[in-house]
């Protein structure tokens, strides 16, 4: 797993940034409804995050799926930990668990 250069890049991104979304399109212009939904949740919580567009990088688009063992995009990472895709993010937000998780990881957010 360590010999793939994409994995090294992904690891650096999720280590250096508290909140990272691997998505289709950019936070300003999401190219997919599921990616847009995750951006919407993070925006509602007023969380600072880094959006990484996988559409501009085919190696990253495949690499992130292997890295997380998760077949779909978007993917949310908080504090270096894979949190889930769109369904899980929405579920966690609705139940208040996402806000709790941000607290645990020391990420500033609106309530």
């Amino acid at each position, binding site marked *: 797993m360590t010999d793939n250069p994409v994995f090294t890049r992904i690891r650096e991104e999720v280590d250096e940034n508290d909140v990272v979304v691997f998505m289709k399109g950019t936070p300003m212009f999401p190219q997919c409804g*599921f990616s847009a939904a995750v951006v919407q949740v993070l925006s509602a919580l007023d969380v600072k995050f880094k959006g990484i567009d996988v559409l501009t990088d085919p190696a990253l688009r495949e690499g992130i*799926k292997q890295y997380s*063992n*998760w*077949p*779909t995009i978007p993917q949310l990472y908080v504090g270096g930990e*894979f*949190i*889930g*895709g*769109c*369904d*899980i993010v929405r*579920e*966690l937000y609705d139940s208040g668990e996402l806000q709790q998780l941000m607290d645990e990881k020391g990420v500033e957010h609106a309530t």
Partner: protein
Amino acid sequence: MPMEASELKQLIIQAIPDATVTIEDLRGDGDHYAASIVSPAFKGKSRVQQHQMVYDALKGRMGSALHALALQTGVPDDLRD
């Protein structure tokens, strides 16, 4: 390449035999589904692990044959902590 709801259901049941599976074809095009899956096998597992079990059951079809599958997983009420 669309996929029948019955085939989807069968794949999940094959991998998780005691699961109760409800599938909804969101657009009627065989390509956008919502699945609700309840099984004792999910007990003690995180949401990510539960969804990974379902994706494993689909044997790589997710993201290729299947474009969109909204997932909701959980353990039966009487087994909840």
